[in-house]
């Protein structure tokens, strides 16, 4: 049985700057995996490359037995790999419901738009109450719900979340990690990028530590939480 997502020697970056220098990682079906690292480690670059927003320079991205390296984001999303981007990136002047509907525009999910909307409103009742409100007028926490709901509308097999807890209150962060755990129990595999190391390793089974575009440490969450370097650098212990 091969992994759902398997990334092999992935190199990527921006015009003239190499950021990722050969990343190896995998996510099995049904797993929650965390990627942690300091500012500028290359976490967002990794997620954007996996999501088809950046073209890799080398390496392979095998998702659901299909090669995705070099594919644009529409093909990646159609394959069932959803992206909740850093900073939410909502359509601020459109209504909450329009944001969600646009998330469901893909061929893989379009036919079940109404059912999927109901499902998102079941998970996030607040969004149901605010469906006609402009997305830009919501609170930070509500906006993060829209970003996750928008990705859910595409019926993903694997959801990548890039720092979803950024800028949220502690209570909101706890709710958010509960939701992520619930989505995983509902059968969605999760790749979670976070600076919030303790919380993300608490929901994830395994994790990778990224530094300067390289995986410097990998293992089960328990092993990482027990590792001296992780404790010193990320947990302040």
């Amino acid at each position, binding site marked *: 049985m091969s992994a759902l997502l398997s990334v092999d020697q992935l190199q990527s970056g921006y015009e003239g700057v190499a950021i990722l220098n050969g990343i190896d990682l995998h996510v099995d079906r049904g797993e929650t995996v965390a990627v942690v690292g300091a500012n500028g480690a290359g976490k967002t670059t990794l997620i954007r490359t996996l*999501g*088809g*927003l950046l073209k890799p320079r080398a390496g392979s991205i095998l998702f659901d037995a299909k090669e995705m390296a070099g594919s*644009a*984001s*529409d*093909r*990646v*999303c*159609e394959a069932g790999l*959803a*992206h*909740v*981007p850093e900073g*939410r*990136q*909502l*359509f*601020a*002047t*459109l209504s909450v419901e*329009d*944001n969600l*509907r*646009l*998330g469901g*525009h*893909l061929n893989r999910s379009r036919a079940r738009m109404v059912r999927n909307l109901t499902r998102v409103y079941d998970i996030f009742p607040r969004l149901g109450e605010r469906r006609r409100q402009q997305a830009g007028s919501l609170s930070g926490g509500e906006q993060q719900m829209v970003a996750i709901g*928008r*990705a859910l509308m*595409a019926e993903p097999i694997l959801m990548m979340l890039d720092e979803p807890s950024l800028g949220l209150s502690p209570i909101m962060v706890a709710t958010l990690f509960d939701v992520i755990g619930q989505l995983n129990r509902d059968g969605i595999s999760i790749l979670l990028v976070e600076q919030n190391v303790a919380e993300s390793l608490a929901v994830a089974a395994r994790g990778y530590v990224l530094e300067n575009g390289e995986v410097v440490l990998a293992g089960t969450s328990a092993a990482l939480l027990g590792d001296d370097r992780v404790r010193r650098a990320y947990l302040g212990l």
Partner: protein
Amino acid sequence: MNELYVGALINGLLIGAVYALIATGLNLIFGVMRVVNFAHGEMVVIGMYMGYGLWRLTGWPPIATIPFALIGLFAMGYGFQRWIGNAFVARPQHVQFVLYIGLALVITGVHAVIFGPDPMGIQSAASFDVYRVAGLRIDATRLHAALAACVLIALLWAWLRFSLTGKALHAAADNLLGARAIGIRTNHIFALAMGMGAACAGAAGALLAPLYDTQPYLASEFTLLAFIIVIVGGLASLPGALLGGVLVGVAEAFAAVVIEPSAKSLFSYGLLIIVLVLMPQGLLGGRQGAGR
């Protein structure tokens, strides 16, 4: 005397609706891509030649050219943007300027080669048709053109507002990164915006064909006209394009009766300057994004 002014008002309103269609296209392109289509007037002239050509070949009124102008200019705008323009969307504005000015020069050059520099007018008995309403004479060609323009603008608004693809245009204008993250094909969306904007220009050209003698160098006047309307109404505002189009149409028509026909651009520039001084964002401008 009074009748003269009422007549000018009506004529201005009618031609203003066609102007609004031109400006709506320019605004749609700008609203979605933040790209200024300097070849917009040239696209209007393509529509005019299509209207003229169809009339020469079949004798049909230019309004019958609308489907051809819509399809032809849509295909041209879509193809140009998809295969050439999209590579320039993220480039600096002066580079885009060169690209779209280049397109404008090519179109005008092609027109000059095919049709020559001489004005070509449609002479038909139908151009003297009038409707009489409450003692007023309303030019039938203008009325039909205005109605067709209003229908097209309404259809475009409805499509942008209610269809999922229309919403994807808003989405791309609003947050390009977010749009790409959820798999919206932004290359296709940009090409759609250019195609629809070009189709507006082409259809307006077909409607103008019986009203103006067509010649290649009219194009820059239309481009300028569309800019004035868009700035008066508000950049990227679709209702602004409608309001601006009608205001400029009426201003021109009054200039023609109050001073003389050649003074018409004097009034539209006057309007532009007044608006720029009093409301730099344009009358309905200020909010960003397509179709707001």
